[in-house]
């Protein structure tokens, strides 16, 4: 099974050759990969090197790998997916609507944007109070604010939709 795995814009071709062997960009590695305690924590022996990795789903179908105190954000595609995607043309992932959901339950302290407003990547979309802190949630991209579903003073549940940003 062959995968293209991207970390920090660098591509790694990872081929799973057997239960204990993979290759990365053609280089062979002995690998012993085990889940610990039924948790998304793994013990990984690669050519004798011992690594502990926590692997979590991240934003937009990435996998976050936390290992030796550093975070690696990875996208894993299998060859078939990859071919389909390149046939369909690049840039697909960028378009469409970004939906901002409340990352935790809390209180909307302020909502500095309005429906239809143009925002830049990094602009504050809302300020949410939770765990006694005021937290600014920022736009991950340039775009236009759509479908604002809350107002200042509202309490929101975790994962509740707050607004969208359309490119």
């Amino acid at each position: 099974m062959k995968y293209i795995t991207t970390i920090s814009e660098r591509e790694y071709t990872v081929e799973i050759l057997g239960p204990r062997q993979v290759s990365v960009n053609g280089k062979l590695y002995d690998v012993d990969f085990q889940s610990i305690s039924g948790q998304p924590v793994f013990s990984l022996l690669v050519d004798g090197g011992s690594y502990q990795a926590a692997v979590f789903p991240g934003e937009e179908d990435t996998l976050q790998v936390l290992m030796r105190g550093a975070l690696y954000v990875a996208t894993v595609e299998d060859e078939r997916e990859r071919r389909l995607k390149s046939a369909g043309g690049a840039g697909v992932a960028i378009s469409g609507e970004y939906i901002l959901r409340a990352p935790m339950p809390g209180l909307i302290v302020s909502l500095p944007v309005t429906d239809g407003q143009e925002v830049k990547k990094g602009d504050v979309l809302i300020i949410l109070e939770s765990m006694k802190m005021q937290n600014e949630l920022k736009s991950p991209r340039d775009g236009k604010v759509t479908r604002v579903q809350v107002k200042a003073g509202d309490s929101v549940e975790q994962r509740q939709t707050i607004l969208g940003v359309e490119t």
Partner: protein
Amino acid sequence: MFNKVLIANRGEIAVRIIRACRELGMHTVAVFSEADRQALHVRLSDEAYPIGPAPSRDSYLRMDKILDVAKKSNAGAIHPGYGFLAERSDFSQACEDEGITFIGPRASAIAAMGDKAVARATVLAAGVPVVPGTEGEGSLSDEDLLRLAPHIGFPLLIKATAGGGGKGMREVRNRDEMPSLLNAARSEAQAAFGDGNVYLEKLVEGARHIEFQIMADMDGNTVHLGERECSLQRRHQKLLEESPSPFIDDDEGFRQVMGEVAVKAAKSVNYANAGTIEFLVDKDKNFYFLEMNTRLQVEHPITEEVTGFDIVTEQLRIARGRQLGITQDQVKMKGWAIECRINAEDPYNNFLPSTGLISHLSVPTGPGVRVDTGVYAGFQISPYYDSLISKLVVRGESRAQAILRMRRALEEYRIVGVKTNIPFHQRLVEQARFIAGNFDTRFVEERFSLEKAEAGKEGYPEIAAIAATLVAHEQTERSAHIIARGKRDTSNWKWVSRWERMHR
């Protein structure tokens, strides 16, 4: 003399106090909100009583309910911990009125130090240097403050009179932005402390935040237990503290000068029990009184580790009317201690707080490592209270050993289910400027970027690629089979549905 103590708090500090009581053979009474029925302080206490709904104002801030529990359970004393009611002079007074020992200073001392403006005036009168600012009496209007600001000079800080922990604090670079910042500070202070009063203070640039631990008995015997370096902060929240301060280090003369001033400040309000005098120190070793925290401090363990003095146990003894067990010349700092505050927040996403169920927990142990915590595997981190999960404290013979020990302890610490700032600390303690002890209160915000720190490291991207690919591969294989429904339901693991979403 009391033998049963009610702990009017939650989280790691409630656990800390329960442990101290147990080690003195005292009985403990916990109180808990609806969100905290399964909290560790409830499980570990001898008794536990509900005091209302999750929001603090309906539970942990309800003096009336807490006093009711104290009476019902025959608790002879109340330990307020930090936060919540710890710095409310009316609570201290109410305890006294009910004949219950308040484990902390007298109401008058809390009141004097609690209004930061009054506090500054009081210690100034006692000959303690203060940061230039509005040392008026009590509340000043926006108009007054705007008028006084140019006399102090910009940049300056707006600070909550009632507050602490950076809440209701704003930095002002010029007069124009001041009105809106005053507004924001007041509303934050109102929300956090039920008191919107603020005051102004000169911003000392390149400053270090160094504080002295004070212990005083009811007879006025007062000692300091040396200093703590607390300059590493983000949004005025301390993140990593150490004792001694690398800035003072072996300048014993300077330590004693500051310590004597700290004792003088405490005595100016007839202080009793544990307290902390915070100073700003500039690069020329000028130092200014900032405020006094009239309570146990979050970071008290590092002082315990270097002095060998159990501060919470001593608080209980002092409250029982005992004299201080030590004199100033018996206080010796030995070795070095560092504390990292482990918060449920995502250091890769603007330190956004993180809630959820802790599904797996591996706590670092071994020589020189101490963890003060209020959580366990299976505990739900709720959005109602602050994000402090635990305090990871290490001690070493030297600062270098303590740093290396902290690194290994951070690497061992595994918390699954919520995001934590552990990676932030891992990078912070690797920084050359941290290792050199060369930082001020702006370091974290202005000179340290987690992303840049990681980009600068060599790292193991191939290994990460292997891990990610194998996880994804396993999920593909799994989703190709029919998976028993029950297996999914009881898993904390969201990959299957994620994978299905990807392949939809």
